[in-house]
């Protein structure tokens, strides 16, 4: 029974995979450009987390210019050609976030660190993972996490806080990210050199491997206290997750990986070059429908270094007029330039119906830290038509509107009917 389900699943997946280029090539464009079909294109999401905040004086549009007639400030100026494709949202806050160097830990979760009595750290599922379950099941990778290649340092210095990427699983445990464009490229496009039969045997072997360690885990489980069992549960969860991956591998076993629409990136790219390459690869992954959900915890220290700045990222974040503030502003502008480049690429890729990838992609760009140690009014830019929110606006919400209301709105927008996310109190009607 399981096999036939997987097979159907796979056929559907494989079908949609080849549909995109095939339809386009035989001139289905006019045919498929009806409105319903546009909205029926797959939805895609990208979450880009900056870590340390922005230069608030020169990044936020004037709150008195709410609406479409607003001037892009210096920090967002490089996005000018995409002003119609983005909406800046002001007033969003994760009310439980109090750790002044944690720009990423709770950004997509809205969790209360102290929610669990007796624990000094607690987190919950991140919005990308909620979305992935629904919108990305038919792709080879349900979601892909990327993590900027900063050196292995104190979380404090990076402005991201604890975690291994922006993503947290259903149990609130950190999900690791790929830390270089080269790794991402290989994940997406490098073909297994192994023959099919051998791979099938390997998958069977992987199953027996998991079965073996599970028997040990079950044995160990007996006699453990509740806390220890919770800890061991992380192991069980990992094994289950690998089982899911194996099932997925099996589905995709006969499907060759798509041909890369992009050249293999060099091995060591750091800072802004890394970001640019990661953006290119995200677009490529959407083009080949390898996944539909990305999170990217961006490089911080290396990013600032790659701008030729002499101040380190933490000092930069504590800016005051002078060199530090200039570096902070340069970082804002460079980030915006890179983001504009990503939007260019998304816009340039046409779907068979004539719409562009950008029309079906929702890009969320920001961080949980506004500036320095400030955690309210998180800088937030939403780009692309994926979640169906109104674009081209400077939206000024009431102070301390839950950031999770935005996440919930985006979930609904891409077709995930969640009741709530984190501390959300409802969807943001101001965005429709």
């Amino acid at each position, binding site marked *: 029974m399981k096999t036939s389900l997987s097979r159907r699943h796979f056929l559907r997946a494989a079908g949609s995979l080849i549909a995109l280029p095939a339809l386009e090539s035989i001139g289905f464009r006019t045919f498929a450009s009806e409105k319903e079909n546009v909205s029926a294109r797959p939805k895609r999401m990208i979450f880009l987390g900056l870590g340390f905040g922005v230069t608030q004086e020169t990044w936020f549009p004037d709150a008195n210019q709410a609406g479409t007639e607003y001037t892009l400030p210096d920090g967002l100026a490089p996005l000018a050609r995409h002003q119609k494709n983005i909406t800046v949202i002001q007033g969003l806050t994760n009310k439980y976030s109090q750790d002044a160097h944690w720009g990423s830990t709770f950004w997509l979760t809205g969790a209360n660190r102290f929610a669990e009595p007796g624990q000094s750290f607690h987190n919950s599922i991140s919005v990308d993972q909620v979305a992935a379950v629904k919108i990305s099941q038919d792709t080879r990778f349900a979601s892909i996490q990327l993590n900027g290649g900063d050196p292995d340092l104190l979380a404090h210095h990076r402005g991201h806080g604890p975690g291994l990427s922006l993503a947290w699983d259903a149990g609130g445990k950190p999900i690791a990210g790929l830390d270089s464009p080269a790794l991402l490229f290989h994940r997406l496009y490098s073909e297994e050199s192994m023959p099919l039969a051998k791979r099938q045997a390997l998958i069977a072997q992987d199953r027996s*491997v998991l079965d073996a360690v599970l028997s040990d885990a079950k044995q160990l489980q007996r006699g453990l206290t509740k806390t220890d069992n919770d800890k061991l549960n992380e192991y069980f969860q990992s094994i289950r997750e690998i089982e899911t991956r194996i099932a997925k591998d099996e589905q995709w076993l006969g499907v060759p990986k798509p041909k890369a629409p992009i050249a293999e990136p060099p091995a060591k790219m750091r800072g802004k070059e890394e970001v640019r390459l990661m953006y290119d690869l995200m677009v490529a992954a959407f083009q080949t429908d390898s996944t539909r959900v990305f999170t990217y915890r961006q490089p911080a220290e290396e990013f600032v270094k790659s701008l030729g700045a002499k101040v380190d990222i933490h000092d930069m974040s504590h800016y005051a007029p002078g060199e530090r503030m200039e570096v902070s502003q340069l970082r804002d502008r460079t980030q915006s330039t890179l983001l504009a480049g990503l939007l260019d690429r998304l816009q340039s890729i046409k779907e068979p119906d004539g719409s562009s990838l950008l029309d079906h992609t929702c890009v969320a760009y920001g961080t949980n830290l506004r500036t320095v140690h400030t955690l309210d009014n998180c800088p937030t830019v939403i780009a692309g038509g994926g979640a169906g929110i109104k674009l081209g606006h400077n939206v000024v919400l009431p102070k301390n509107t839950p950031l999770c209301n935005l996440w919930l709105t985006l979930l609904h927008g891409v077709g995930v009917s969640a009741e709530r996310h984190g501390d959300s109190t409802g969807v943001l009607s101001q965005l429709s």
Partner: protein
Amino acid sequence: MESRLASVLRLLRTCSLLGLGSLGLGAAFAEPSSASPTPKPAEHPALPGKHRDFLTRYCTECHGAEKQKGKLRLDDIPFTLDSPERAERWAKILNSLNSGEMPPDDAKQPEKPEKADFLEALSQTMVAARRALTDQGGKITMRRLNRREYQNTLRELLGVNLDVGTLPPDGGSDTFDTVGASLFMSPDQFQLYRELGKKALTLSFKAATTETAVQKAHFEAEAETIPMIERQVAEFVSIRKRHTQWTRQVDAAARKPENAKIAAELREKHKGHTEKFYLEWEKIPGAPSPKEFGFPDAIDANMMNGRWDTYVPQAADYLTLPKAKSGTYLGVAHLNHRWVSLPVPQSWPPGEYKVRARIAAPPEGPVERRFVDFLTDHPSNQVVSTHQVTGTMENPQLLEFTCKVDAESGRRFKFSEKAVSGNGDGKGPANDIFREGFEANRIGPEYAVWIDWVEVEGPIQSPQIAGTLANVRSQIERFEKKETDARQVLSAFASKALRGRDVTPEFLDKLVAIYEARTKEGDKPLDAIKEPLALLLSSPSFLYLAEPATEGAPRQLTERELATRLSFFLWSSPPDAELLDLANRGELRKPEVLSKQVDRLLADERSERFTRAFVAQWLGLSRLDFFQFNSRLYRDYDLPTKAASKNEVFVTFHTLLQKRASLSKLLKSDSVFINGLLAQYYKIPGVIGDAFREVTLPADSPRGGLLGMAAILAMGSNGEQTSPVERGAWVLRKLLHDPPPPAPANVPQLNRLAGKPLTTRERIALHQEEPQCAQCHRKIDPIGFGLENFDAAGRWRTEDLRPDVPQNNRQINASGAFHKGESFRDYFQLRDLIAAKPERLARGFTEALVEFALGRPFGFSDEDLASEIMDRASKKNLEIAEFIHALADSKPFHSK
């Protein structure tokens, strides 16, 4: 409602419980009262009752019995923070005060000191409440092996040194890497364990079955240098010749009458820069292209020709040096004589190698440059070790040391002068040294190091590794001769790897089945067995230090568990045969036996792992690696010196531990543990050589104790300038056990005076302007200012030479006073005041030790444990080893 007196008394108990110095009550109240009864764990922190006045004056008009703006009522708010909800409510109050949102602008505002006092008390109470509410009542969460322990365990099981850098980093939010709650597992990580396990087994099998004859390679240092320099000179001669030919022909074309006008124009344009004239050769009809002379273009032609000055005179000079024909003088820039390399075949197996060099310092070279670095060609180009050159040209020294080579690392080693390694900021002092020398004589600087020959010999296995590999070999042989079958091999390995846990028949069956499946696939038995063995190394029984228990009262550890806990505490690796033997005989728990074992473990060199891991995390030393020091400002704080300064912290602690010396020596000491390199850095005469040793200081030395250590001071900087805030906060956290609360969120930024020339002190005084900042900075900053006589790299100074400091205000003023406490005139008095309170350091050290050893945060319920350890250590003059003994003897250490 409880009386104010009762609540104050309760708070006092709590404060002393928390070791939280003063909660805005003044230091005099903060000392623990001997009459205070033993606390119950249920005791919860409370804001002192006197602060209700603050609420009454500024808050309750809008948030009181009559009006409750924002549905918030504060007149009856309980001051005890005994539930997450109450803590949350107070967190909101704290935030709205910190952000300046409350009281609103049109309402009555508190005086600054008044507000700062309230904020300070509330922040501290919040920290205490969070700790109380997250207290686990002494429960230890089962943990997995961290990266270090995993690596050490594989080494002891398989005799190989595995690079585990691909595993995700351990430890989360400011905890030790032994704290179970912060050690996670993920699917990727499981796969990595599988891969690393297989890799370790492959390496181990290979090492065990390959005959490792000791090999030796010898290189005469001049062998490559002289031909290389001759090649470079020949190249420059050729360049000059071709360049001359080219420019002559351009000149000839320019002399043609028809080109006179353009030639004159160009000569006028480049007056004084003859070279640049040739860059515009294309404008002169008939002038030849530099390509015809072998140059890619004109710019390149000029550039290559221009390098003559810095290369050729240096080379010519080099060839005349008295011992250039029998060795290499190490250069610092331009010519390729900066390194003496020792390439050995990549086939040489991993292990320890002896490296020897015959080496000397030419008399002209300055003393401070008489150091060589030894590097590998690992991509990080890391300096493996640094050595002082003490030999003379007449009587060179024989340098000998060992170097570890693992499977991944390359096999090319090299020596260079220390200056060449630089500061890691990409500039490095080498170019500056060259420039200074070149400007003086148009040749280059004097040479500081000469190498006659170098030698590598090995591998030399340590007896431990050799023993492990011999064991692996005999296992393999018996398996291949079919004296043992897969089940027996797996079972034997499991009993070793799982630290005494029995592998269940079911698990074993499955492992054997995997082995059989692989042999059916055609794998050779020795390859097929790797997969199930690697699985044992990825199984929860191996990866987790499990101590089964039931809910409720703690139980006593079994002897095996005790052996494991002790061994991971002091060696970061599993128990050895002697510990296991004692445990199996049921003797380890006997106090006199345990005490002997603690001493044995501490005396073993593996205890260095404890020192390095614990001290680095306790004192937060990773911050040091974060900054590159500007080589223009801190030329002598190069990477080797920085590494030595970090080593000083470890060596000092470890020696004090082994000498049974007092922890208080970390606060002030009349001696330091340094080597020749650090002695030069600290300007302490008479210390020559690479070994660290105890050196007695002159009475007026600022060194001696952590506060005088370059590494500690450099951490309190950003590589450019000092950070009195980082330094002050570090002293409060680590030495005075009075940690400031975490930086509050949402405090408005002060930009008022930015951009104006200010002294560091003036700049930071801005912190005192707003009460939100002052609540902590009035405690932090004075201590930081007291350390201003040390520059960013920890060198002693009397003036701040930063360019943005006003000329007339450069004199360092280190005087100050502790907030609501004693004043000090200078650094020396500050150090004495801190050193007068060794019990503060001891308390923080105790808490850190408990956390590290038990793998869980220090909690309220540990109060008795801390007192017990402190009491025992106090009776022995705070000997470091005594803290460890007391902890190892304590009930919590023996309980799950």
